[in-house]
Each structure stands twice: as C-alpha cells, then as structure tokens.
C-alpha cells in the first residue's frame, strides 16, 4: 500500500469527501473523549478518575466505529471497559485509596509535567498537522474493519506475533498470580 497513491487518489476525487455529519460527530465525540481524559489526569477523586477513564475509553470505541473499525471497537469495549477498568478499580480498593477528594493526588512536579507534556503536544500536533493537513480518509467502499476481515488477516498474516502474544499473556498471568499470592501457606516448600 503506497500512501503516495492514496494521496494522489484523494486529490483527484475531492467529491468523495466524507459527509460532514461523520466529521462533526467525530469531532464532538473527540472533544468529549479529550475532556474525559483531562479529567482523568486532573481529578482529585481517585475513583472518579477511573470512571472518567471509562468515558474516555468508551469515547474512543465510538471513534473506532466512526472509522469503520467495528471489530476493534468491540474489543475495546470488552477488554478495556469490561476488564481493565474493573481491575484498576479493584486495585484502588485493595490499596485503600481514599474515597472522596484527596488534596494530594498530584505530586510536586506538576509544573515539570506540564512543561514536558506541553512541549510534547506542540511537537506532535505540529508534526501531525504538517503531515496530514490535506489528507482525507475515504470511508466509502468496503468496510475496512469487519470482524471477518480483521480475523482473517490476523490468522493469515500475523500468526507469529499472535502466538508470541499467548506466551506473553500466560507470563503476565502467572507473574501476576505469583506476585499477589500471600506468603502464608501458599507454597509447600516453606
């Protein structure tokens, strides 16, 4: 797939631009997602942070749907909203995170953080805008992200990383179990 061809193609057919409705939806959902993300990293209530994270991740799932990547969208909902956030909430509970406002949710170097994040934002946005200021995605035609298309490509082209990933998941599972197991009587050799 050569982006040069894609660029040329889009330049030749300005009439195939996506309908503005999708764009408007995308921007609105995007703003909501970004807002939720900002609240996640700034709220002083720890549990709220997890909930705002759900909103942000859910917003991303909607964006995936708008980009016609439906399979990814469902996986996003299932794995992130369904399990990761639940895990995080469990974590907050187990570490007895305070419910309600905690005045010290931020560490001392928020200004450093702001500086680095700001510099990164300026750089990345500039790079991205510079590259894509005249590029359109063609959302018509075959849907790019159906479950069938994605699944087929996964098993036809990406078998090796897929199998490596199973090792990774198993290792993470075993590691997590070993680390969180209490010492009392868990092992016979002690």
């Amino acid at each position: 797939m050569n982006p040069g061809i894609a660029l040329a193609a889009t330049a030749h057919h300005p009439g195939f631009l996506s309908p503005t409705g999708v764009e408007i939806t995308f921007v609105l959902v995007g703003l909501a997602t970004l807002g939720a993300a900002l609240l996640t990293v700034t709220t002083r209530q720890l549990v709220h942070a997890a909930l705002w994270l759900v909103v942000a991740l859910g917003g991303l799932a909607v964006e995936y749907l708008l980009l016609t990547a439906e399979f990814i969208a469902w996986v996003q909902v299932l794995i992130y909203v369904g399990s990761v956030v639940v895990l995080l909430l469990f974590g907050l509970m187990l570490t007895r995170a305070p419910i309600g406002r905690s005045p010290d949710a931020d560490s001392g170097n928020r200004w450093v953080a702001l500086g680095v994040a700001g510099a990164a934002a300026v750089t990345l946005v500039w790079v991205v805008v510079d590259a894509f200021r005249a590029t359109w995605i063609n959302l018509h035609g075959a849907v790019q992200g159906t479950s069938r298309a994605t699944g087929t490509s996964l098993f036809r082209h990406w078998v090796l990383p897929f199998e490596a990933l199973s090792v990774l998941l198993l290792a993470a599972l075993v590691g997590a179990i070993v680390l969180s197991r209490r010492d009392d009587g868990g092992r016979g050799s002690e």
Partner: protein
Amino acid sequence: MTLTALAALVPLLPFLGAAAGLLLGRTAPGFVRPLAVLPTAACLVVAAVVAARQGTGAPTDAAHRLATTGSVPIDLSLHLDGFSVLIAVLVGLVATCVQVYSLSYLRDDPRYPSYAALVSLFTAAMLLVVYTGDLMVLLVGWEVMGICSYFLVGHYWETETARAASIKAFLVTKLGDVPFLIGVFALASDAGTFRINGILAAAGEGRLHHPTVIALLLLAGVAGKSAQFPLHTWLPDAMAGPTPVSALIHAATMVAAGIYLVARLLPVFTASAAALAVLAAMAAVTMIGSGLAALAQDDIKRVLAYSTMGQLGYMAGALAVGDRDAAVFHLLSHGAFKALLFLGAGVVIHAAGTNSLTAMSRMGGMGRRIPDALWTMGLALAALAALPPLSGFFSKESVLRAAEHASAGHTAHVPSAVGWTVLVAGLAAAVLTGAYATRLFLLAFRGSGPEVPDHGRQPATMTTVLWVLALPTVAFGGLAYRELPDWFGGTGHDGLGPVLLTSILGTGLAVVGVLAAYGAWQGTAAIRRAAPFGAVVAEPADAEPALVEAEAMATHEAVYGDIASAEDPGDPGRLLLGPLHRPAAHGFHLDAVYSVVFVRPVLAAASLVRFLDRDVVETYVKAAGGTPGLLGAAVRKAQTGNVQTYLGALLAGAVVLAVLVAVGT
C-alpha cells in the same frame, strides 16, 4: 632452538616468574625470592644470547596472525634488530640488578612477594615493547607498564605522599596515553596495518595522509611516558616509590619506552618537519628546565629524577635531529649509569638515615662509611656530567655531534633551526649537568660535621650490584662507539665517534659547571659550618633499608616544610641559581596550572553525576530504608516523585530527540 623461539622466551620468563610469584606468594614463601631473581637473571642470559646470535645481521621478523579486527589485522610478531636486542640486554641487566638489590633492600617487607612479582611483570612488559613488531602488542606492554608503575610507586601505601604520587603518575601518563591511543589508531588506519614494518614502509612511500597530526598525537604519549615537558610532572613525585623501583623506572624501562618508540617509528616523525620542531622544543625546554630544577632539589632522589628528565631530553633532541643511533647509544649508556646512581642513592639514604642533601652536608665521614657508594657514584656522576673517557662522554658527544651536523643543514628532512635548538640547549644543559652532579657529590659525600650515625653494614648484595653496574658506566661508551653503527644497520651518518669541535665545547662547558659548583660549595662552606641543620632518622642499628627510606620520606615534609626543597642558606645551588631557586625547586609550579586546567573540570563533572546518583537516587533508597527521621524536610522534598523524575527525563529526552531529528535535519 631457533632465534625467534629464544626471543619469545625473553619476555615470557619474567612474566611466568611474576605469575608464579603471585600465585605462590602466600602458600610457599620460600620460593618467592628465587622466583623473583632467577627468571629475571635467566632472561638476561637469554637476551644476551639473542643479542649475540642476532648480532649485526639483517633484522629478523616472525609473525603470527592473532586477530582480524574489522579492517586492520593484529599480529603477534617479533622484530629483532640491533636496537631491540641491545636494549633488551640493558633491560635484563638493570632488572636483574634491581631484583638482587631488592633482596636486601626490602628484606623484611611483608609485601615483598607482590612487589617482586610486579617488578618482574614490569620487566616482561618492557621486553614485550622492545621486541614486538606490532603496534597493538606494543600498546599492551605500554599499558601494563603504566599499571605496574602505578602499583610500584604506591608501594608505601600507608603514606599520603605515595598514594598521591601513584595516582598522579597514573593520571598524568594517561593524559598522554589518550592522544597516543588515538594516534596509534590513526596511524594504523592510514597505513592499513599495525605492523611496524608496514607502517615504516608506508611512511617511506609517503602513504601517510596526516603525518603531522599523527606524529603530534604520538608525541603526547611519548611525553607522558618519557617524562618530557609538559607531561613530566609525575616523575619527580614518583620518587615516593622504593629506590629500586626508581632505578628500574628511570634507567631502562618505562621512561626509555617513549624514546624507543620514537626511535622505532622515526620515519613517521621525519615525515613532518613540524613534529620534529615540536620534539626539539620539548627536548630543549626539558633539558634546561630539568637542569635548573635539579640544582635546587634537596631530596637526593629528586635530583636524580630531574637529571633523568634532562638526559631523556638529550635523547629526544637526538631524535629531533633525525639521528636515532645517537639516541639509542645515549639510552644504553644512560641506562647503566642512572641505574647505578639510583641504587647508590639507596645505599646513601640507608647510611645517612635521611634523603635530604642539606642534612647530609652537615655529616662527616660519609665517604668512609660507604666507600663502595663513594667510588661508584663518583664515577657515575662523572659519566653523567659527560667527562671523558667515561661512557656518558661518548654517548652525549654523539648527540651533540648529530645536532651540530643538523644545524649546519647537512641532515635530510631536518630544518637547521631544529639542529641549532638542540645544540644550544644541549650545551647549556651540559653546564647545568656538570654543576648539579658536582653539587650532589659534594653535599652527599664531602659534608662536615658530626660523624654519620651507624645504621649497620651495607649488605653485600647491595654493594656488589653497584660495582657490576660500574663496569659499563666506565667502559661501555669507549668500547662500543666503533661497533654500534654496524649493529644499528649502518644507517647513521658517519659513525658515533667524537669529533673535535663538539668534544671540546661539551667537555669544556661541563668542566665550567663542575668548577662553578665547586666554587660555590667552597664559598658557602662557612655558612654550613655556622648553621647546623638537619633531622636524621634515628633507626635501630640494622633496620631494613626500605624502612629507613620510607621514614625519611615521610618526615621530610614535616622537618623542612616542603617535599622538594629545604631552606638551607648553605646550599651551593641556591647561590648559583639566585632568584630562580624557589620556582626551580617547585618544578616551576606546573602542577598548579594542571590543577586549574584539568583536575577541576573533571572533579566538577564527577560531582555532578555523583549528585544525580547519590543525592537524588540514593536518597531514595536511603529513605526507603526506613530512616525518615534522619532525613530533613529538604531531603524529602528533593526525593519527591523520583520515578517521575526518571520518566520526565525519559520523555523529555524523547521529545528533544524527535524535535532535533524532525526539525533539525
């Protein structure tokens, strides 16, 4: 046995001796002494056999391809010619003498096993440098010598002086070794080989692209190892090591390595007139400066140290005028008499109980107490001052003659200004050499005052060695100057024998120096009688010589307020030098300059990293150890968000990288 196998045996014997000495030092103390002396002595014999068999024949080369590193291959190769076999004999001779001498000198030292092993290792490394035909292997020996000298100079580990001196020796020579390393690599990549023969061929055909840069880089390393200005400052301080070590380092091994290297690679240097000019300037400054400094020193060993620098200056001067025969000739004869002088100084320090010339000048009867040292050192000092017909006369004469030849513009590749520089500096240094040699002799052996306290009889091993070394001091020069050009492949201009003009000039000036010093000594005799001076280490009758020396060094600064000089109005050197005396005594304050230029920036950089590591990172661990009470609020503040500090650096680094790459290029 083939010649190459024999030659390979020469560095191998002391190396094996060192390894066995280190391994058996603890378990079998009885073997330590034989293991120190016998391999070295055997190596002397083998080296002599190799020299006899190699003789004046064509150079012998043998090589074994050791490794191919990327572009330039490395060989384990031998190169035997007149230069290398003769220097190897000298190294073997001095090393054997030093090992025998150390038997008595360090007889009770608990660290003798490691000391002897290091001396053997040092010898092996120098022999490797001498025999090898490959720059890479030469570099190995070069580095090993550096490390060994670091440990040997720091032998009296308990004293602050020795610790400082050993580190200084290490760092200052390293300062030269960095450019040297770069120079070697540049040379090898220019010539396409590490083999010295190949490099010389390349230099001969003019295939070196940057001869000046390479030669100057190499010169930095040579200046460090051979103690030439401005990297000479480690050498006087290295006197903090035991006297036999000084003899070894100064006479035949470490300092000679630099000269030997330039002699081997001389075509590389003659390819660049600028490098020759720098070498000549370096040699001239070293010769005169060291002569002045030697005249002002109070410590007998420091006088000798500065004199070594001066004599090395003569050799460097000979190389600057393109005459390596003369340089190596002087290297050989100097090796013999300088080893003798240092070993003799050890005897003197043991007998007098002090290393201070001022204190010795207030003692009577030193000559009667140690007649062996009186006679042998007298001869060696005369050789140092280049009085005929001793060895030093012939070899120094050959240097002056080469300089005169070049100053007249008769030497190819060498500008006549270079010749003039070396000639004038050499003649001036001849006066100074005569003066400080005389001053040393008169102050040490012709003092007047209370009888020298008895420190016991000098062990026979120590005095015998002096007489062994006295033989070449007297006879080598006169016997060898006709033969040597054949050994050196007949490349010299027209022999090494003395010629009338420079002989008369050189000898005359030396005599002037001698007479001036004698006159000054006579002139200050009254002051010396009037001002009793000195502190003598009162040791029990048969203390170990090394112990006496260590105490003398340790107390010198306390008694005289300075490591180098003493406030003695009766010193003839003070009269001769006048206002120059104080700066000369302190080596013209070069150390202070170095401290500002090199030491402080390094310290600053190190403490910055130390702050990052210790005060930021370790505080974190420290606090993790559960001692919050000990840590003030400030520390806690500094440690806040530590992982985030790491992450901040990581992300900031990534952003900077991205910006630089995306925008900057």
